[in-house]
């Protein structure tokens, strides 16, 4: 796999944590620790892609059918009524 070098600034707290993991032998170097943790973070963040794709799909449905797939019937009355209470 082709890889690239990316310069990144980290705060001391994060770096201390990375160093701790290296000292404990979890990773062999700062570089490996960062690489593995970023990969895990990217995997974890895949739900963001699902949301973006989902919103695009809803926009497509609207374009195709000519009407919004999101109807909040009766919601305004409820919202205004709740605002009245506080």
């Amino acid at each position, binding site marked *: 796999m082709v890889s690239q070098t990316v310069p990144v600034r980290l705060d001391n707290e994060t770096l201390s944590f990375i160093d701790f993991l290296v000292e404990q032998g979890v990773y062999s170097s700062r570089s490996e620790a960062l690489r593995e943790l970023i990969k895990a973070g990217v995997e974890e963040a895949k739900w963001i892609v*699902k949301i973006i794709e989902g919103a695009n799909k809803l926009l497509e449905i609207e374009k195709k059918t000519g009407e919004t797939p999101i109807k*909040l019937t009766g919601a305004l009355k409820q919202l205004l009524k709740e605002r009245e209470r506080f």
Partner: protein
Amino acid sequence: MSYIDTSTIVAALDPEDPRYHRTRKILEEEEYKVISELALAELANVISRREELVANIASKLGLTRELAVITIILYIMRKFKLNYGSTREFSKTPPLGETYAPIAEAIKLSPKLKLKTLNTLHIAYVKTLKNKGQPIRKIITVDKNFKKSKNQIENIAKTRLHIIE
């Protein structure tokens, strides 16, 4: 730039409301629109309680219900080209202490506006966003509760208040 109150967005998606077409037209015609995190929270709340809608969208898109709610919010923001204005800032309210900037504004505005809490908070967000450099000229709402303090809102926030009736 216009600040869009949550009520305007909800009206534009509520076919039962008589302002449905008017609010849609206004949202489509207004060029630069900003919403606050308060609008995001109110929208999440309104959408979450439409359980059938959320379940239907979740199943259609293969998402959990939690993700479906955020997906619907993102769709609404893209549909009406709404920009989220962030207010990451804290302010001092001596001698009470440090609070989140919109809350500090709301504390200052409350005795002047005498509105309900959420209405006061929306005006506080307008002031905070303006202090952060957002050129807000107009507040667009369908909530008539703002009406009684229209002059004060316009004077204090230096912003026109447009209530869609």
